[in-house]
């Protein structure tokens, strides 16, 4: 409640929340395509590689200004992305290895430059480290406006190019055979991702930025049956994690916004992985259990059939204690299920004995059918 009240009154928090929401929308939309094209790690490479760009911009300009920082991050990030492409084209390395190498080299370079700048005793360097994990408090209204424009451009682009983006993401060879300029559009998508990342650096930082691209998209994929819904839901999830992370961080001093946003996004991912219908782990577990139940009833039915056969008596009463010891566990629930399906009935044999079960004629036929099905597949 306090957070909401301060949101309405505190100018700075409002900036951060708005910025985080916009970042969530743009990275959710663009991230959906990146994830489906198996390029989620490209975002990570771009993000990490922008650190030396930020440092380079500082070394050239001498102060920390928004425009040179963004430009530096964009230029060096692009160089890194092209290096990855070059390595894949020219060597036998696969995409993941190439991305891993480029990512760590550029990030290491960035850290070295960061310490170098730190040792220079330049007053303007203060807060350059905040690019590592983001510093929401430094966001200005101008930044929010920039983020708004970028988000608008990203959404408009996706809307206009929808069919092309969709068919490229699903089947790029087929897209090319239709005459769609696949390479150019892929570059455009990558450029948009780079832009979204650079914009998010201030808020989330280079280390965690990639998860803003991946998490909302992955979570959305769990719930949807169409690309339209995936992109929409990813935007909603991104916005939700941005806003809740920003609000949570405003609850106390010193809670960094970036990591909190990422944690919120991860919580959404966790919930989606477990609870989403059909794809969720919980759903799968329930299905498996139900399946097990069916298997067990069929097992019991056919075993009773075999016992009746052995005794040459279709109406042979079997004591429940016998059934229990056959499986080494209690079988009353399975037997009750069989009875409710009309495949067996309860009976009493001798007064001092426990309850017995007898196959009905329907149960006998069902057992025969199951056994015949089994042998048919051999």
């Amino acid at each position: 409640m306090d957070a909401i009240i301060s949101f309405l009154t505190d100018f700075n928090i409002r900036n951060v929340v708005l910025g985080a929401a916009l970042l969530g929308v743009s990275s959710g939309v663009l991230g959906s395509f990146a994830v489906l094209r198996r390029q989620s790690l490209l975002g990570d490479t771009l993000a990490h590689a922008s650190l030396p760009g930020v440092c380079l911009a500082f070394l050239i300009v001498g102060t920390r200004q928004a425009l040179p920082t963004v430009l530096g991050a964009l230029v060096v990030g692009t160089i890194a992305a092209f290096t990855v492409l070059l390595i894949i084209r020219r060597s036998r390395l696969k995409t993941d290895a190439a991305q891993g190498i480029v990512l760590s080299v550029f990030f290491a370079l960035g850290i070295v430059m960061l310490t170098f700048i730190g040792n220079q005793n330049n007053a303007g360097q203060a807060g350059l480290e905040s690019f590592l994990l983001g510093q929401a408090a430094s966001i200005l209204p101008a930044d929010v406006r920039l983020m708004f424009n970028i988000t608008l451009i990203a959404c408009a682009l996706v809307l206009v190019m929808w069919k092309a983006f969709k068919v490229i993401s699903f089947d790029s060879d087929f897209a090319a055979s239709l005459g769609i300029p696949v390479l150019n559009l892929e570059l455009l998508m990558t450029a948009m991702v780079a832009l979204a990342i650079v914009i998010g650096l201030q808020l989330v930082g280079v280390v965690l930025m990639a998860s803003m691209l991946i998490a909302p998209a992955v979570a959305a994929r769990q719930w949807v049956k169409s690309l339209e819904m995936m992109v929409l839901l990813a935007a909603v999830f991104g916005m939700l994690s941005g806003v809740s992370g920003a609000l949570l961080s405003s609850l106390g001093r010193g809670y960094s916004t970036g990591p909190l946003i990422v944690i919120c996004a991860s919580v959404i991912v966790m919930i989606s992985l477990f609870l989403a219908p059909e794809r969720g782990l919980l759903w799968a577990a329930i299905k498996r259990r139900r399946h097990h139940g069916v298997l067990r009833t069929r097992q019991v039915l056919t075993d009773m059939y075999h016992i009746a056969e052995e005794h040459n008596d279709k109406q042979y009463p079997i004591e429940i204690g016998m059934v229990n010891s056959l499986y080494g566990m209690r079988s009353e629930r399975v037997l009750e299920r069989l009875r409710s399906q009309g495949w067996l009935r309860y009976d009493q044999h001798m007064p001092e004995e426990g309850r017995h079960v007898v196959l009905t004629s329907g149960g006998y036929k069902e057992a025969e059918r199951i056994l015949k099905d089994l042998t048919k597949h051999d």
Partner: protein
Amino acid sequence: MIRQHVNNHESGYALHVEDLTVSYGTKPVLWDIDLNVPPGVLAAIVGPNGAGKSTLIKTVLGLIKPAAGHVYIHGKPYVKQRHLVGYVPQRSSVDWDFPTTALDVVTMGLYGRLGWLRRAGREERRRAANALEQVGMEAFGNRQISQLSGGQRQRVFLARALVQDADLYFMDEPMAGVDATTERAIINILKELRSLGKTVIVVHHDLQTVSQYFDWMLLLNVRALAQGRVEDVYTAENLQKAYGSQIALLQNADIPSAKKSVISNEVSQEALQKN
């Protein structure tokens, strides 16, 4: 630089390829391919693993840039004739966990003619549904593609090509890894396309069925070793040229002029896949 295309160059052929050479790195994958496929045939591209069969199709379609050579379709350069061409890529080339339905995938075959901005409407969905019906998948239109079996996915791909209403079809191993029913369904559709006067060029990996299914073939192993009517090309000598001494077509008594001495007992991968 002015690059002028020649119109009506070898216009008697559905597909005319000349001097086509492709290399990855230092080694040529395709070398100096000359190919003339007449219209209205059901053609197989046959050759051992790594012979460049898929590469040939992809290069013809402009997905791979050749080092040399040109591709003409019905007498005009490929880029001008793209609307006449339909394509069925290998099934394994896409991620089938993509969030979409069978009908939606088929609709993608119409994106080329819809242009950039127009969205698929009722007419497009109707045509896609028709194509699904043609491949016997009308009941699966709303099914998520992740829930389809391999054979069903192949049929969806085929339906997407049918909806393109092309004149010349390229299909990359449409019969790989599908069950006998699907294989029969696919070949029936291919024959139907041929009877409509269309040309269908298929990368085919199963030597045993070539003469049964196709009437024209190209034997490929980096070079175009032989091409023409199946009864002329499908000979033991030619097959040995493509597959080397490891060829085994033991069961195939119907290979013309097949001498037992030419056929070794080593069974090739291709032959193994079917047996």
